[in-house]
């Protein structure tokens, strides 16, 4: 197998100045991320069926574990960092998180109010008769 990168006949197929070597983190970073993600997954699946905990605290623990695992993925697999050269990425990411928060929390909030202000279904049925 020839090393195509240094084959002069193919040199024109590379964009000048485009250097991508060594830009995807390190072998160690992926292994650390993978191990952390496995531990967090196992923790989540172990906590969920617990009988001696209040449902609310299980739910809170699961949400915390999920957020932690998402952060592990973002940091170790997607290599999102707070480095100055990633300012635009972080801005776009933060704006997206804001929209996601508005969509999810807003929907739940509005729909729960709507549900509690709804007339019970049997009374709706009676009015239609």
């Amino acid at each position, binding site marked *: *197998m020839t*090393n*195509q*990168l240094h084959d002069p006949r*193919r040199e024109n*197929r*590379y*964009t000048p*100045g*485009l250097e*991508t*070597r*060594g*830009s*995807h*983190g*390190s*072998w160690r970073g*992926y292994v650390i*991320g*993978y191990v952390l*993600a*496995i531990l967090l*997954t196992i923790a*989540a*699946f172990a906590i*969920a*069926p617990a009988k001696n905990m209040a*449902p609310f605290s*299980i*739910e809170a623990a*699961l*949400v915390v*574990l*999920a957020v932690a*695992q*998402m952060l592990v*993925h*973002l940091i170790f*697999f*997607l*290599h*999102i*960092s707070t480095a*100055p*050269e*990633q*300012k*635009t*990425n972080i801005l*776009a*990411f933060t704006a*997206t998180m804001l*929209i*996601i928060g508005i*969509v*999810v929390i*807003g*929907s*739940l909030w509005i729909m729960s109010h709507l549900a509690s202000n709804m007339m019970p279904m049997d009374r709706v049925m009676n009015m239609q008769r």
Partner: protein
Amino acid sequence: MSVDVATLDSHPEEDHVLPTRQHITGFGFYIYLLSDGILFAALFAAFAVLRGATDGGPDSHALFSARNALIETACLLTSSFTCGMAMLACDRRNRIMTLVGFLVTAALGVMFITLEVREFSDLIARGAGPDRSAFLSSFFTLVSTHGIHVTCGLIWLMVLLAQFLGRGFTSAMVRRFLCFSLFWHVLDVVWIAIFTFVYLIGGYL
């Protein structure tokens, strides 16, 4: 360590350098992935709102198998890891390891999809298909949107590998692999939310 995710911001010491094609494509693809996140957020919101709307049909406690979800999680998480390994091999221009890494990624992706299709057909056979209740409609929409993304990713990866066998490490090829790996990692992040909110909180609480 240099810039990891493609970005339009240049290094402080390289202010005169224009963003390369890879940076621009990578940034555009990153924006697409964020918008995909908003799509999934809307589907999650619908699922959360409709969770109790079972219309007398089976609810989430009766239907979901955490064991199946755990195996699916293991497949997807490991495939995300092997995808990262393939990208490292791609950085080092190691042809064999890139190919092996992406083939393992694809095999694990196929396993994931097989498990999901089996689970769906099992639910439909038990009379809990997407037409049974609003809760099941939202469940099938959310989880199968993710599954369709994974399937498209697998087709995309097969096309990329066919191109790669013919062309080797051209700059366009490396750029496409970069976009694919971003896509694949983000699908794994979405799956974390699915197994937590649908299978664990929905199945047990």
